[in-house]
């Protein structure tokens, strides 16, 4: 009996050892450094993990997923970066700006994927968006403005002129307007701007352009956000729809908006990690802006403006306000 037990034990151990060796031979190591734990960033990480699983990289089978949070402290983020680089993972992932910067400062060789970074060029993570040099690429969570232009075209047939109200003092808004102009010029659309430095100026600014445009775009801009009701009010009088840069504007009366949740950002980050694990060169993986798939529509607002929302949009909508 004792002999049997020892014998069984031997085989069990041998099998486990073989299993461990065969697993180890093809295990990829992904190290994730996150600045702080909050719902958006946690969802990004979970999206990354689930996205990798969907692509055949499963934790505990062929993926070692190491994760640390700096608990809001950039000095700890630096230490995490040093620790991770010393462990030589296949890919380093930095969630949010300071953690990504700490990783980039720590290694010039290990591939780094940043995510949930709004302005990767301003943060000096990459110099060239289209063709990253060195060992860094990733995903920006800037609002998907070019998708918003598509949305406006879909919503307003025969669209020629887009109006936009924004505060030129807000960095986020200014970069959104630049994206808007370049996306519009590709489609031969004209953009008419009106600026408002204070939220009390928004109403007047909207009135100036309302009669000249077919749709008004409200960018992600704190000044506009706090006066969104005033903007919607003017547009209702002028019978033109508002398309929001943020999905939250739909609740206040914008007809439509498109956005993403951070789980989606994580899923899109997994594409980057997968490409690198499969041996693609960083320079062939351009930095991109997170794509949105959450379509918010305000049916009540559309009805009062006499706009018929195309069926294709209604089908895609994830959130309807009636």
């Amino acid at each position, binding site marked *: 009996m004792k002999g049997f037990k020892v014998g069984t034990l031997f085989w069990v151990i041998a099998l486990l050892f073989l299993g461990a060796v065969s697993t180890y031979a093809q295990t990829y190591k992904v190290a994730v450094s*996150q600045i702080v*734990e909050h719902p958006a960033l946690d969802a990004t990480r979970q999206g990354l993990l689930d996205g990798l699983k969907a692509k055949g990289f499963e934790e505990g089978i062929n993926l070692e997923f*190491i*994760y*640390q*949070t700096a*608990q*809001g*402290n*950039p*000095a*700890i983020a*630096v*230490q*995490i*970066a*040093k*620790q991770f*680089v*010393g*462990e*030589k993972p296949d890919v380093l992932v930095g969630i949010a*700006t*300071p953690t990504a*910067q*700490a990783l*980039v*400062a*720590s290694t010039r060789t290990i591939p780094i994927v940043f995510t949930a970074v709004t302005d990767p060029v*301003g*943060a*000096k*993570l990459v*110099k060239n968006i289209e063709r990253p040099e060195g060992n860094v690429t990733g995903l920006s969570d800037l609002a998907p403005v070019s998708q918003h232009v598509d949305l406006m075209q879909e919503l307003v047939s025969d669209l020629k002129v887009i109006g936009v109200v924004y505060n030129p003092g807000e*960095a986020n808004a200014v970069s959104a307007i630049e994206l808007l102009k370049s996306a519009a010029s590709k489609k031969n659309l004209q953009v008419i701007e009106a600026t408002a430095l204070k939220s009390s100026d928004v109403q007047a600014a909207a009135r100036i352009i309302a009669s000249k445009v077919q749709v008004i775009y409200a960018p992600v801009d704190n000044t506009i956000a706090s006066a969104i009701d005033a903007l919607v009010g003017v547009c209702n009088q002028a019978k033109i729809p508002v398309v929001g840069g943020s999905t939250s504007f739909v609740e206040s009366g914008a007809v439509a908006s498109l956005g993403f949740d951070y789980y989606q950002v994580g899923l899109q980050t997994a594409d980057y990690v997968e490409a690198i694990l499969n041996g693609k060169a960083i320079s062939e993986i351009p930095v991109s802006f997170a794509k949105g798939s959450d379509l918010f529509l305000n049916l009540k607002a559309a009805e009062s403006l006499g706009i018929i929302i195309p069926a294709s949009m209604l089908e895609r909508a994830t959130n309807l306000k009636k």
Partner: protein
Amino acid sequence: MSLFAFLGTLEIGLIYGLVALGVFLTFRILDFPDLTVDGSFPMGGAVAATAIIAGVNPWLATILAMACGALCGLVTAFLAVRCGILHLLASILTMIAAFSVNIRIMGRPNIALLGEATIFTPFEQGIFDQLHVHLAIVFLLVLFSALFIIRLLTSDFGLGLRATGVNDRMVAAQGGNIGFFTYFGLALSNGFVGFAGALFAQSNSFADVTSGVGTIVVGLAAVILGQTLLTGNRIWIAVVAVIVGSILYRLAVAFALSSGMFGMQASDLNLVTAALVAIALIAPKMKGKIRFGSLRGPSTT
């Protein structure tokens, strides 16, 4: 822990050693609990980064950062000495004000220095790699700072500074100016902290407005940890102790970061770090108790 991680830990421990020196000056020497450091540390980084981006020589930018840190200390001293605000509250006021000022200085919450020339850049060419060069330069700067503090505190002027913290009435009776010593001590302390912030930003290629969070906690932990483990009445022992304490604190964080095997998860980091530091603080006392306690019974000292 890999060698890369160890050297990185040593470097950041040394940089925060400057913070520990600053906290030692206020907390131990002046007996002035000073929370200004949470504001003067990121200010050092903000000033150095902004100046470097604007094309200022990195060494000059670092000195500017020290000056701005010192200015924070002067503001706290003014609020405490001149306006009679309780020292803790005075330093909290400066700290929260500094947050807004830092965003004003940088114009945004984060400035990247990747690819910019820093004080480390001229030494990075050649046979040595970046990590060793950073460590060597930081070590030299901390060494000079420590020697300066030791020299200062052992001078006649330093005696007045030390006496202010121990017995300010005696200093006043001897004709010393307590107010002046407080101004000077706080400015010097926060100057060192600003220096640390500037080094941190340049070594890690970014200045972030949130990098001040918990600086005072790290500084105090370093001072108390170091002085508990390395005891002695000599000034140089105390100065060495606080720098060693800062490195030990960073080693505790590094061990906490690699504690995944004990069923700890990433969010337990602060708890594990605190537990490790607590153990380090209790250990020498336990050792003393076991050695003497079992032979002589309860200690009378």
